[in-house]
């Protein structure tokens, strides 16, 4: 350690590998003082000007703000607030192009200056040494200070370090060509900078403070030396000019001989580095309560008539800066934000400058050609000679072009600081840094995807487990239920007996059905049999549906009367059609009934697609149910007509039964319908089985017809009842049921919409094929 200090004191520096000596081009702006420029008409402030997260807005459009007033805030450690650079009105807050090579839009705040430049109330700090460390760090954070050397890392995080700090290095190197912002700042404001360094000294308590300045800035060196003459532990280090000495790792190597290992931060070596402009801003913030609202920007390049350093308010549009320095528009406009080595071309000149903008470079086409003269790599190896990170740019280039991401990671692509020295020396003019940036972005993306894939896999596995568990539970439940049922059945209780008989009745019914269909198969075509089966099944299904619909109907909406009438019309038509058909055979009538039902359904559906949503809902819903009902009634009516000739007596019986059933409330009728159906069937069946075994088949046929009759009669009664009730309820329904039905309407509306869509799609498909 002492050897390092002794060497530093003697001015014996280390050397880092590589580096280049491009023409410095600082003579454009080097001998002019920092100028104040006119206020722009508008300030474009991106909400995020640093590495980290943007804060939340605390102003809105139309607010009047004072100079220095915070515009965003956040308690997230990586968020840094922005402040109003001048007093004015917030004109707009929306996405706009920002100073980023992609040209993408980011949220920006547009501030219209009012020309008064009124400050907010500031509280000056007499003696910052009376504040605690955390208080000062909070002040720095609230002043919106991020690293102004180019990276934009939130300063308060860098200062909030735990380990012992051996070296605090102040970076005044400014190695990049053209840029003289830090040079002029050091010359003009050396005292404030040294104040800022003293504040950092107070927070970090380093053992040594080194201010690094390249030897091409003699005035700045003198100024800083004078300003820091009274400080014991500040050492001004004059280092040889080389690009990129100002890089963090390179400067650490130059001054202390230590190398920051791959993936580590300098503070693991006990070193903290800050730029001189950041120190200046820290001093202003802590002592004068001035937040970060302006910075020195070098406007230079041969296309600018008056190249100079200017004090630019943050958010000043680049165009305004250029106009102030008398920029001459070029045939092919080429504007660079930053220096020629590490800057990026601005896709759009109407962007606001941000905290990390240290230079606007407007070269002529001859000065910095923007042509693509790339040719093949000749494997000269010059790039490896100049790389300050001791990488192999040639290998990286081959693998980057071949997209060999494994090899790139092996060759330490992520240690590349993108300084551009390799691209500068390449005789084939290959834009190496561009390829590395693409490769880095791609690798980062792949790493993100891998993480995502792992997460997705874990979720998928978890889901599979969950479904398997649920399945086992379900099966367990079924098994237990089955066992319980079996146990109940086998016990000698009355319920068990009735259950058994119910099961037996059901089985008998099934057998009867089978026998009936078998009988009919002998004497008719197979198609009609299927239809017969379907219709008989449909009838029972229809009856059940009607029961369900009835249960629901107590909640449905109004306007059903119309619908009922409408649906009755086609139903009636269908019925008349049916009656017109000279159907002698009951089966043919049933077939016709089925067809008619289908037709009626279609008609009503078509009608309802034309009407509005709510009515659609009601109509489709009720139409489905009511069409089913009238059709069923019509169909069964014909059947009953045929069979009534045979069984008038029994029908009278069932009619009487149906009447009392119909007189009860709707819900009960639903249940009662279901129950009496079964029980009557039951009784009938048991009667038959008890009485006449010889006539069993006939009786079964009779009973099945009777069942149909029963159902038909019941349906008829139910329909009539429904009609009556609806007529009575139309007025009430409007008032009472809207709320309940609203939701159902919407649901039904949505389903209907989707159905309509699907129908349309089907139609389109049919048309296309």
């Amino acid at each position, binding site marked *: 350690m002492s050897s390092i200090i002794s060497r530093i004191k003697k001015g014996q520096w280390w050397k880092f590998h590589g580096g280049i000596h491009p023409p410095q081009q600082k003579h454009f702006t080097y001998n002019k003082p920092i100028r104040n420029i006119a206020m722009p008409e508008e300030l474009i402030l991106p909400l995020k000007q640093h590495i980290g997260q943007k804060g939340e807005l605390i102003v809105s459009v139309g607010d009047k703000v004072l100079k220095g007033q915070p515009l965003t805030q956040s308690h997230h450690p990586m968020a840094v607030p922005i402040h109003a650079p001048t007093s004015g009105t917030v004109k707009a807050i929306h996405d706009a192009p920002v100073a980023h090579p992609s040209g993408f839009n980011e949220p920006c705040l547009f501030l219209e200056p009012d020309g008064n430049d009124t400050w907010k109330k500031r509280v000056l700090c007499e003696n910052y040494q009376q504040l605690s460390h955390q208080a000062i760090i909070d002040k720095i954070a609230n002043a919106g200070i991020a690293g102004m050397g180019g990276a934009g890392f939130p300063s308060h995080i860098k200062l909030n370090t735990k380990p012992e700090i051996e070296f605090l290095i102040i970076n005044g190197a400014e190695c990049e060509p053209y840029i003289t912002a830090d040079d002029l700042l050091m010359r003009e404001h050396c005292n404030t900078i040294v104040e800022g360094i003293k504040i950092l000294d107070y927070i970090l308590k380093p053992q040594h403070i080194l201010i690094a300045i390249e030897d091409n800035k003699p005035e700045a060196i003198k100024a800083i030396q004078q300003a820091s003459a009274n400080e014991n532990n500040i050492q001004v280090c004059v280092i040889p000019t080389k690009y990129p000495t100002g890089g963090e790792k390179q400067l650490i190597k130059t001054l202390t001989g230590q190398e920051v290992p791959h993936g580590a931060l300098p503070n693991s070596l006990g070193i903290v580095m800050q730029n001189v402009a950041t120190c200046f801003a820290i001093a202003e913030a802590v002592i004068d309560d001035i937040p970060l609202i302006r910075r020195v920007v070098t406007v230079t390049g041969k296309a600018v008539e008056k190249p100079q350093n200017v004090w630019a308010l943050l958010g000043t549009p680049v165009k305004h800066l250029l106009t102030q320095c008398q920029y001459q528009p070029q045939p092919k406009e080429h504007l660079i934000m930053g220096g020629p080595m590490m800057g990026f071309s601005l896709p759009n000149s109407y962007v606001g400058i941000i905290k990390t903008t240290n230079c606007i470079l407007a070269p002529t086409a001859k000065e910095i050609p923007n042509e693509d003269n790339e040719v093949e790599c000749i494997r000269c190896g010059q790039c490896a000679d100049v790389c300050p990170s001791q990488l192999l740019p040639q290998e990286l280039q081959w*693998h980057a*072009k071949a997209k*060999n991401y494994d090899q790139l990671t092996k060759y330490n692509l992520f240690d590349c600081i993108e300084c551009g020295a390799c691209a500068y020396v390449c005789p084939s003019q290959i834009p190496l840094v561009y390829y590395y940036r693409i490769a880095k972005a791609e690798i980062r993306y792949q790493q993100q995807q891998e993480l995502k894939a792992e997460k997705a896999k874990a979720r998928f596995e978890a889901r599979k487990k969950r479904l398997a568990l649920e399945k086992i539970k379900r099966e367990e439940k079924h098994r237990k239920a089955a066992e319980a049922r079996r146990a109940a059945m086998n016990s000698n209780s009355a319920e068990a007996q009735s259950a058994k008989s119910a099961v037996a009745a059901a089985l008998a019914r099934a057998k009867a059905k089978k026998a009936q269909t078998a009988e009919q198969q002998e004497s008719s075509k197979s198609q009609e049999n299927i239809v017969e089966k379907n219709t008989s099944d449909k009838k029972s299904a229809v009856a059940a549906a009607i029961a369900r619909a009835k249960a629901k109907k107590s909640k449905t909406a109004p306007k059903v009367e119309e619908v009922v009438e409408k649906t009755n019309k086609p139903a009636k038509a269908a019925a008349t059609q049916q009656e017109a058909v000279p159907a002698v055979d009951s089966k043919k009538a049933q077939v016709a009934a089925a067809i008619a039902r289908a037709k009626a359904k279609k008609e009503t559906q078509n009608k309802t697609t034309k009407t509005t949503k709510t009515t659609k809902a009601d109509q489709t819903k009720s139409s489905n149910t009511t069409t089913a009902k009238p059709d069923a009634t019509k169909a069964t009516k014909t059947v009953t007509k045929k069979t009534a000739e045979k069984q008038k007596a029994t029908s009278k019986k069932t009619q009487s039964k149906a009447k009392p059933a119909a007189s009860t409330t709707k819900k009960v009728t639903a249940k009662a319908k279901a129950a009496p159906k079964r029980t009557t069937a039951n009784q009938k069946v048991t009667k038959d089985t008890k009485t006449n075994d010889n006539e069993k088949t006939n009786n079964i046929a009779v009973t099945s017809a009777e069942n149909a009759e029963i159902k038909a009669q019941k349906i008829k009664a139910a329909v009539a009842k429904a009609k009556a009730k609806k007529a009575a309820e139309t007025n009430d329904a409007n008032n009472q049921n809207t709320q309940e039905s609203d939701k159902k309407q919407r649901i039904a509306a949505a389903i209907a919409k989707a159905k309509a869509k699907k129908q349309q799609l089907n139609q389109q498909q049919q048309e296309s094929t």
Partner: protein
Amino acid sequence: MTDYLLLLVGTVLVNNFVLVKFLGLCPFMGVSSRVETAIGMSFATTFVMTLASLLSYLVNSYILAPLGLEYLITMAFILVIAVVVQFTEVVVHKTSASLYRTLGIFLPLITTNCAVLGVALLNFYQQHNFFESIIYGFGAAVGFSLVLIMFSAMREKLANADVPTPFKGPAIAMITAGLMSLAFMGFTGLVKF
């Protein structure tokens, strides 16, 4: 001692099995697309060659020769080589599953590597004694490994380079192998024996 040294140098450089004798070209072309695979393959082949030449010498001198069955050497040596390769495969599978996977089919194909059988037979025809057989086998393997690794490094670079389309792939690999062979023939006259 110097004899053995000369034998070794001669086998590795002067009479390199791959580039001068043109034996063992199959794995030479097949495994040399990546340096890691090449290194793995060279270890496996060295092990096989040395052990196979040792065992074949033993089989020949203690079983076949005393019984006058020298005409069976081809079959016997193949048997020995197959067993050694199978053994190597099992060992590699156990120790380094990734190497086993990357070598894939080429590991059992060492059996058909004519360099291995060639070493065994050449040992017989040149009537080497026990130590000479081992050194000959080892030298052949070292020569094979040297050339294989060099070639794979070159092929890796070629994969990224801008090769004209008619030459891409195996074509440029063959040309490179030919040029290497020319280069190695420059070693002729290095050792006189």
